[in-house]
């Protein structure tokens, strides 16, 4: 059970993702070649700090309203008089700092993950009736071609965040809503399934909605047996790719998933992320397309078939209204004729060509209905901490949505690859960062997956452990660790067709031997790198790359570096600090606090940030000490 089952509520509105872009170019991590221009906005073809160097990393929902309730019977309800849940606003935590959107690694900005994020439902009086913690999970099914030219770069991108809300708490007033009562009853273990589809992002700093985008979302029941981060079901998969490496069909549709809902005997299709939009981000009218079951499982995309080549289900609803009000999820009753075929024949979206019923296949279910995907797929492994140097994930395999027992899986480790995508040249050429391009996937044989050839059980599932090495060097020289990109699929000659970025990705931290008693020289380079990459902190709060300011603020720095990984205020926001480097920083700041005692003057705390120091009355011992100094003024006399 997941958000595609019943009961579910849909919502739509905006999201804010104020991500910082100085760290978009891995070469900016090199302290020795860092230029002040890398902290400025992009100017024409001079990339500088790209399009949002002053980002905070904040992720939040904005102005999201509940649109439709679908109870256990699957029937949509939109009249608030029938259920007050329709007056609810979907929001963030009412009393905590905002969640953060974080890339796995600068060399893999394709698995952005939300940390420290809470989702709430508040009634029309602002009272919170439900609150849950979003379990960190990166987005999936990312593609860059959703909107046509001239929509630029990330604005044309679209992706889905699917996860569970944990520790879900309901206010007793929620019981006044028949829908909420059903949802509470249908969910297991105080968890809910949630899916956010995000697109139409504005990266233009002159737009008041800079760093905002459109979100359509859905909340439904969560069951432990189901994967948290994707729908294991009937997956439509294009077999054509465009220049941007997006899998898209001839009419611009990318992959999407669906399930057969047994309780209502309907097909539930989630194409919130899949249909192309116009330049204003409205779903395009694709004409009359029909969902059908193909009678010949080997019918290819883009081929023409006769009326006996398919069995009709129903027309595609590619309206903007479906996207906004039903979160891009269409419900189709399955006619008797289709029902006979549907469990072992592929689904497809076809275009009828003439009155005789000849049709063209626009996009169809993955060949042989094969799907294999891991629930968690993005990992951080830390050789400096044995307990953080391994992780585990569950792979799920299915054929036509039915779990596949005894399926053998295999892994392919990526070959050495340079990060071309994030290292553009600037004009003028001398403003191109001078650091060398990092190479990924080297050295080989570092990450281990166990078992090497997993086999699924009778539930179509298999647990796989991922291990980091005992020791990791610094293959990327000026920044920590290494990225490993690992492909996975069915072993044998029938692999599943996969989305472009559906890989297992692991960042392995470098081994770092921290000194017992670290001094400033030990910690400065780490702090310098963060000060370079995050001017919102180093200019907006205080420059912690300068000893005077770092030491004066030892207390708050110790505080934020000591937080739990899932805390919204965990530092660094980017979660790219190994355990040993982190321990070293904590040890350094603890040492500063112990040595200096507490700063007794609150004003010193703030002016300690000023690199010029500030004028305070010198203490007698300081005057004494200064009198013999060559620089001391001869006019100064003892008090």
């Amino acid at each position, binding site marked *: 059970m997941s958000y595609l089952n019943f009961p579910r509520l849909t919502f739509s509105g905006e999201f804010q993702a104020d991500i910082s872009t100085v760290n978009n170019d891995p070469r900016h991590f090199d302290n020795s070649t860092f230029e002040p221009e890398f902290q400025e906005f992009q100017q024409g073809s001079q990339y500088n700090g790209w399009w949002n160097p002053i980002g905070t990393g904040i992720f939040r929902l904005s102005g999201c309203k509940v649109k439709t309730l679908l109870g256990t019977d699957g029937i949509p309800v939109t009249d608030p008089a029938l259920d007050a849940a329709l007056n609810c606003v979907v929001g963030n935590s009412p009393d905590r700092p905002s969640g953060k959107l974080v890339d796995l690694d600068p060399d893999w900005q394709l698995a952005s993950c939300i940390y420290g994020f809470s989702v709430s439902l508040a009634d029309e009086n602002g009272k919170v009736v439900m609150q849950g913690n979003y379990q960190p999970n990166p987005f999936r099914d990312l593609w860059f071609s959703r909107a046509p030219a001239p929509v630029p770069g990330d604005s044309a991108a679209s992706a889905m965040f699917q996860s569970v809300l944990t520790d879900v708490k309901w206010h007793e007033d929620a019981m006044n809503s028949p829908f909420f009562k059903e949802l509470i009853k249908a969910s297991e273990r105080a968890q809910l399934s949630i899916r956010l589809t995000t697109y139409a992002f504005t990266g233009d700093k002159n737009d*008041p909605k800079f760093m905002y985008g459109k979100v359509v979302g859905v909340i439904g029941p969560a069951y432990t047996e189901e994967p948290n981060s994707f729908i294991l079901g009937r997956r439509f998969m294009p077999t054509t790719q465009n220049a941007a490496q997006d899998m898209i069909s001839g009419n611009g549709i990318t992959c999407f998933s669906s399930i057969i809902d047994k309780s209502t005997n309907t097909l539930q299709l989630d194409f919130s992320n899949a249909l192309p939009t116009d330049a204003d981000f409205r779903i395009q009218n694709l004409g009359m397309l029909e969902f059908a079951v193909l009678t010949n499982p080997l019918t290819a995309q883009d081929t023409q078939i006769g009326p006996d080549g398919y069995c009709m289900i129903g027309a595609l609803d590619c309206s903007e209204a479906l996207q906004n009000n039903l979160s891009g999820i269409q419900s189709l009753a399955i006619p008797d004729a289709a029902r006979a075929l549907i469990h072992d024949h592929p689904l497809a979206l076809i275009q009828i060509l003439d009155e005789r019923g000849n049709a063209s296949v626009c996009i169809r279910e993955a060949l042989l209905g094969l799907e294999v995907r891991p629930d968690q797929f993005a990992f951080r492994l830390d050789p400096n901490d044995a307990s953080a140097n391994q992780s585990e994930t569950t792979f799920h395999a299915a054929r036509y949505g039915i779990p596949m027992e005894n399926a053998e899986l295999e892994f392919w480790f990526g070959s050495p690859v340079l990060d071309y995508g994030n290292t553009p040249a600037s004009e003028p050429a001398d403003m191109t960062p001078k650091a060398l391009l990092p190479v990924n996937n080297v050295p080989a044989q570092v990450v281990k997956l166990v078992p090497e050839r997993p086999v699924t059980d009778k539930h179509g599932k298999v647990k796989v452990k991922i291990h980091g090495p005992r020791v990791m060097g610094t293959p990327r020289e000026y920044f920590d660790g290494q990225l490993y990109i690992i492909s996975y699929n069915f072993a044998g000659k029938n692999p599943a067709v996969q989305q472009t970025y559906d890989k297992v990705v692991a960042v392995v931290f470098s081994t770092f031997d921290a000194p017992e008693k670290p001094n400033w020289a030990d910690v400065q380079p780490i702090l310098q790198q963060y000060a370079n990459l995050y001017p919102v902190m180093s200019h907006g709060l205080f420059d912690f790359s300068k000893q005077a300011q770092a030491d004066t603020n030892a207390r708050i720095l110790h505080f934020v570096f000591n937080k739990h990984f899932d805390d919204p205020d965990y530092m660094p926001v980017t979660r790219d600090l190994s355990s040993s480097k982190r321990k070293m920083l904590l040890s350094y700041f603890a040492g500063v606090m112990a040595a200096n005692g507490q700063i007794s003057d609150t004003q010193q705390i703030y002016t300690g940030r000023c690199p010029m120091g500030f004028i305070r009355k010198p203490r007698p011992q300081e005057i004494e000490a200064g009198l013999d100094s060559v620089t001391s003024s001869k006019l100064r006399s003892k008090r």
Partner: protein
Amino acid sequence: MLLIKPEVMKRLREAQDISVVQDMLISAFTLELATLPTYFTGAFSVKAGANQEAWALVQSVALEEMLHLTLACNLLISIGGNPEILKTGLGLKFPTQLPMNVDEGLSVSLQALTKEHIYQVFMGIERPDTRTPLPGETALHRLTTLKIEKGYNSIGDFYEAILLKLAEFQVAGDDPFAHPREERQVNILKWFPPTNRKCGNGKVTNLASAKAVIHTIVSQGEGVTVEKTPIDPYGGLEGSFAHFFKFGEIFYGNRLVENALAPSGWSYSGAPVALDQQGIHNFLPNAALSDYAPGSGAYVAGADFYNVYKRLLTSLDHVFNGAPDQLNAALGIMYELKLVAQKVVQYPANPSDPDGLVAAPPFMLTHCEPA
């Protein structure tokens, strides 16, 4: 200098029930809360990297007002009251007289950190309760004269009256500290840097701790020991002058130095202190979100800011109503407030006047009184 309304003092002195003292402390914490938008706005008006000393000064005062807020709330909790931080914070309107203050007294407004604003508002709030002429002044200040002529009470008098009343109840056999609910109070040692105060962890459980907490609230900021001459601008604190005099250095433009020829023994005649007006944003005064055109950059960023402010108040509300450790989250939200404020000030208040007033982070939704 706060001049307490005579009717307030009368009501306090004649109180027969603890609920009156609770009401008084509610006004007290409201007063502390109202200073925060005042100081924050001043801090937000400083351009990045400019006027560091002035900026640090305003920030340090804001931190101490937060400490006072915490102590006032601890005291209220100890005598059975519950601080409604969210409701109070959302109801603050500017410009305003501070709570309990006489109408012809100090009015606080939300403005950029100009010399005029420093003098009128910041030095006004911090002005010590003394009849001694203060450095830079040739005659007694208007507020001091008002106080003398009308016999108004100071904030020190107000808190003194609170203590007397609590002692009175105790003697009468009705111990106001019977259920101090310590677990609901905030341990200030955990959250605030220690300064020269004598109130330990800031929790109130009896008259002695109430006295210590009140002493801390009253003695910081003003510096000058009440009714003593000559003045001591250090106010017993190590390191630097009290806030009133630090502000004075910025206003008068020179360091405060000992000067035997000056009536107070001190004068602002030392090294120059600069306040670079170019380094201050020309803010729209007393900004509300409704001042900005919907859809404009100021409005979008302003709405964001108000959302964070509301979240901060919500978090503090939980802190003082049963979850003191949530100060952890409140601290994080305070940093977020700073970062989001920086976004607001990038926009003009009015998009058709891009070189005119700058959008100030709004602490009010509208200018109207809440329903």
